[in-house]
């Protein structure tokens, strides 16, 4: 391109100036573009060794010319003695090369002034220009024996907190070590261009011109460049500007080996590309294999096997975590689904089709994209037209023929409409909403409908395919590794980064902690190893007598209610509860109002408990009744679906469970454990997020109020939409401490909090936003009160799987689910956190998934062993299940509480219930 207009004149003027200035070094002829370009070119010649430019803010446009006229703002250049200056650019921190960028006349003018200033500052000095060789590597000077610049800091070591207690157990985890071949790796560089280039894509294209010399692969985000090879010191390259074709000098400064975190990012991208080479389709974060689809023809379903992978920095270095996953697809297109509906009900099939389609997530197989259906447009057909990206009117039929080579068969089908929200401009928070039309013939509904989920036959067939035993899962994993190592393209990709994927997952040694003993009022029961469930045959630890209670039922449930009343009296005496005859109250009609009227007239001050029989499960009635029993007239309530007691052979065991639940709701305790600390308080916290339209999140908080950990205090807090972080913990903790003092006569000196529902990205915020609130609440009790606080985050939905190895660790080991109580706290745990994995529950089908615990705050002197064992103990104390559960009981109680309030109550429950487990 040729310059034109005033820019050309100005450029010529500048060139003539330059020729006068450095006659010894003629400027190579260059071709500028436009006005601003001329200015940029004038700067080309100014890259000199030994000349520093102090970083300044970069004004642009007219303002810039003004700024430059003031000498204080103008780029100050001073000549330094060459011996003082290291050959690389000094990275002292404050000094940074910033080239003025301007546009238009003012920029030119500014450049002109700046040049004159330089001439004054360094008269007659014209340092030698670099030779015009394509590839110049400067020889490192003796001072540069370390090729890295001063800002290079070695990475901090991993946080290792290991326990020692328990029996050793060989396990395999689904992590794969990534080995780097000698002389390769990830090296970080900064890149400078002169003249400066602002456009990232231009910069990338110029780097690509030398990709061969840079090792063949790169990762560049516009600021930092990562290469697989190490170039010592400073390296310069001559590039051709992709648009102006002018000469640009690119200088690379090696900052040292890339941090492990950066490596993980690069490897993650690398594995995404490998997945594509292996023929896997990307859906969200997972990759699925359409060719391996398993058909379940009787239900017209398809299961796509897939993988989910993540490369992360762990204690044992950068590793690949990989798990097998599935996705359920319907094999019928949306068109077929609609036509089936139309056949069955030709009159108002449209209404039914809307019910099915609205909110459904559909997959379009031509591009494997997923969309949410928001509407059906019945008045449009594939022959309707739309304006495409070129601004041309085109029919859908033609569009699919041209772009995807798909011929739409049914010309009369309606179109599906999907609203796609996209943030157009990052500064503008309002999302741009676009309507996208989809062809039903080409769309396939993904996932299961509620009707399918309720159908046990479908679910049975599906779980057979979806649940993988440990050895099946291990097989899938090894096959994936085999595929990577056998695929030529992926091997090439890996080789470029010098990466080797090991053929087998890591083998580790985990520990199985000692089994607990369950304490009852009349003795203790030792749990045999390997079991996680037990049967309550003893007297309950703290039993509550039921003296005054009522049963509400409708006429048809009279017999069930009578049987329940008599059975309760019989069975509760075995468990140590005294139950007096209850009053049966007949509800006149099977209507919500009748139930509420009967309930209100029954609740009296002396009444302890009200049991309500529901003929069928209705959430609106449940919510109405719970609102009365938890807010309006606080009382312990138990809702029972009459159908559950309809089978007499099962009724006994169910009534026993209900009796235990009632005992808890009245403030009793079923069993206990030996607690090693004297004045301990355990807290749990979870947040319930309602559906998106409701705009409310409910935080549930529970805490024990006695050292035996049998009584529970609870509170709720309300937050905005999807607000995960609690802001009223000070009130909650203050209330819990007050309750503890009331119940036990002293404050706890050790507090352990289990926090559920925190993702990886929010760990830091839990530490910096929630923990200070807890610490403040201690301060409210006086400066001298400083209990030791430990905050543990529980994460249930994780990719990690652990398989225990039976027999020897051969190439084909026999794998099983690890025993409850298995702890893994090294190698595959996080690099920056004090964390561990614990398997507490027992799973008979499929693979058990361990729970990840991260200790985000710990100012106690508790050993990792103690935290791990206490966590395991806490999984025994959930009174709605006679066994261990996958998360500690406090977190599960908090979850139940938040769920009850978020789904049904929507309001603060009465504080008179706060010391009971009314939410079970």
């Amino acid at each position, binding site marked *: 391109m040729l310059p034109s207009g005033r820019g050309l004149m100005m450029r010529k003027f500048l060139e003539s100036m330059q020729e006068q200035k450095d006659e010894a070094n003629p400027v190579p002829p260059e071709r500028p573009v436009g006005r601003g370009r001329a200015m940029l070119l004038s700067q080309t010649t100014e890259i000199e060794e030994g000349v520093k430019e102090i970083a300044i803010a970069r004004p642009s446009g007219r303002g810039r010319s003004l700024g430059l006229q003031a000498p204080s703002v103008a780029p100050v250049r001073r000549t330094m003695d060459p011996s003082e200056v290291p050959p690389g650019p000094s990275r002292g921190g404050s000094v940074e090369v910033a080239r003025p960028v301007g546009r238009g006349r003012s920029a030119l003018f500014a450049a002109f002034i700046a040049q004159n200033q330089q001439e004054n500052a360094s008269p007659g000095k014209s340092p030698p220009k670099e030779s015009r060789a394509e590839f110049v590597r400067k020889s490192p000077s003796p001072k540069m024996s370390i090729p890295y610049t001063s800002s290079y800091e070695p990475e901090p070591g991993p946080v290792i907190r290991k326990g020692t207690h328990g029996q050793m157990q060989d396990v395999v985890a689904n992590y794969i070590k990534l080995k780097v071949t000698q002389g390769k790796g990830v090296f970080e560089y900064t890149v400078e261009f002169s003249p400066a280039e602002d456009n990232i894509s231009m910069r990338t294209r110029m780097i690509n011109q030398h990709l061969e010399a840079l090792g063949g692969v790169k990762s560049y985000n516009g600021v930092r460049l990562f290469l697989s090879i190490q170039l010592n010191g400073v390296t310069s390259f001559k590039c051709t500007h992709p648009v102006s074709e002018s000469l640009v000098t690119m200088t690379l400064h090696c900052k040292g080996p890339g941090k492990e975190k950066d490596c993980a990012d690069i490897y993650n991208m690398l594995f995404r590309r490998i997945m594509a080479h292996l023929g896997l389709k990307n859906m969200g974060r997972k990759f699925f294999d359409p060719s391996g689809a398993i058909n379940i023809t009787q239900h017209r379903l398809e299961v796509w096997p897939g993988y989910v992978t993540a490369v992360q920095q762990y204690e044992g270095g950068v590793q690949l975590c990989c798990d097998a996953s599935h996705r359920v697809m319907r094999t019928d297109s949306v068109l077929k689904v609609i036509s089936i509906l139309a056949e069955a009900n030709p009159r108002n099939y449209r209404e039914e089709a809307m019910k099915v389609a609205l909110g459904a997530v559909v997959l379009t197989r031509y591009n494997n994209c997923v969309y949410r259906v928001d509407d059906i447009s019945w008045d449009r057909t594939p022959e309707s037209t739309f304006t495409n990206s070129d601004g041309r009117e085109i029919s859908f039929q033609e569009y699919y023929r041209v772009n995807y080579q798909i011929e739409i068969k049914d010309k009369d089908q309606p179109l599906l409409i999907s609203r796609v929200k996209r943030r157009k401009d990052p500064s503008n928070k309002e999302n741009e909403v676009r309507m996208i039309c989809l062809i039903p013939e080409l769309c396939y509904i993904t996932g299961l409908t509620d009707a399918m989920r309720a159908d046990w036959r479908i679910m049975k067939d599906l779980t057979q395919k979806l649940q993988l035993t440990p050895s099946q899962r291990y097989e899938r994993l090894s096959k994936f590794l085999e595929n990577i190592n056998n695929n030529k393209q992926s091997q090439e990709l890996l080789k470029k980064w010098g990466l080797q994927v090991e053929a087998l997952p890591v083998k580790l040694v985990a520990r199985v902690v000692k089994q607990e003993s369950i304490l009852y009022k009349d003795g203790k029961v030792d749990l045999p190893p390997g079991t996680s469930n037990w049967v309550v045959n003893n007297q309950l630890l703290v039993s509550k007598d039921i003296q005054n209670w009522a049963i509400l039922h409708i006429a048809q449930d009279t017999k069930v209610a009578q049987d329940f009343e008599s059975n309760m009296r019989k069975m509760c005496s075995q468990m140590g509860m005294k139950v007096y005859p209850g009053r049966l109250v007949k509800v006149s009609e099977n209507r919500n109002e009748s139930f509420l009227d009967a309930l209100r007239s029954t609740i009296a001050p002396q009444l302890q408990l009200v049991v309500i029989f529901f003929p069928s499960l209705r959430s609106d009635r449940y919510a109405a009744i719970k609102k009365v029993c938890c807010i309006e007239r606080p009382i312990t309530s138990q809702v029972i679906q009459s159908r559950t007691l309809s089978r007499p052979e099962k009724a006994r065991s169910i009534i026993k469970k209900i009796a235990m639940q009632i005992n808890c709701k009245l403030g009793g305790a079923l069993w206990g454990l030996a607690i090693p600390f004297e004045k301990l308080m355990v807290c749990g916290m979870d947040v319930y997020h309602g559906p998106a339209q409701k705009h409310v999140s409910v935080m549930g908080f529970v805490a024990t109020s006695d050292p035996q950990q049998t009584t529970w205090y609870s509170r709720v807090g309300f937050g905005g939409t999807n607000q995960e972080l609690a802001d*009223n913990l000070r009130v909650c903790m203050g209330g819990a401490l007050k309750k503890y003092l009331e119940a036990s006569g002293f404050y706890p000196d050790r507090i352990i909090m289990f926090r559920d529902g925190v993702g990886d990205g929010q760990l830091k915020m839990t530490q910096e936003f929630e923990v200070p609130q807890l610490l*403040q609440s201690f301060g409210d009790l006086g400066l001298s009160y400083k209990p030791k606080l430990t905050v543990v985050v529980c994460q249930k939905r994780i990719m990690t799987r652990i398989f225990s190895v039976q027999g020897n660790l051969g190439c084909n080991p026999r794998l099983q689910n690890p025993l409850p109580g298995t702890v893994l706290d090294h190698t595959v745990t996080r690099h920056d956190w004090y964390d561990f994995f614990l398997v507490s529950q027992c799973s008979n089908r499929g693979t058990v998934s361990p729970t990840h615990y991260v200790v985000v705050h710990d100012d106690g002197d508790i050993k990792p062993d103690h935290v791990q064992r206490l966590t395991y103990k806490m999984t025994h104390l959930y009174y709605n299940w006679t066994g261990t559960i996958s998360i500690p009981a406090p977190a599960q109680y908090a979850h139940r509480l938040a769920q009850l309030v978020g789904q049904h109550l929507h309001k603060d429950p009465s504080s008179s219930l706060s010391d009971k487990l009314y939410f079970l």
Partner: protein
Amino acid sequence: MNDNFVICPYDRNHIIDKMKLPYHLVKCEKNYPNIILEKCPYNYTHRFPAEEMPDHILSCSARPEEFELESIQKKEVKPEFEHSVHTINPQESSLVSNSNEISKNGFNHQKCIRPPVPCPRVLSVCGLKVNVQY
């Protein structure tokens, strides 16, 4: 602009999405070490200078019902303009709802009323009696 935006108590130029407020406060607290704001005992995102906190506690929307404020003698108050900008309750002052409360120069007049003589008072914070010092 709608109700989802609040003003950062550390820098009134920061207009923050309500959902992101906790993240922002953690950041701003670090970036403005010379601005020391008290945190409301009922909501950690309510932040005010120490002298305004008692007044905020009286009017805090997040105060649970059971925490009645005890033994507070309301002294005669003298209106005084506080030339501080860190007086905006981030939770309650969305730009729209507060437009009548904040005058043109951005100072919040209503919130700046404080008793003339500083004296310690006993407040019930979190249900516990706490001495609040001016």
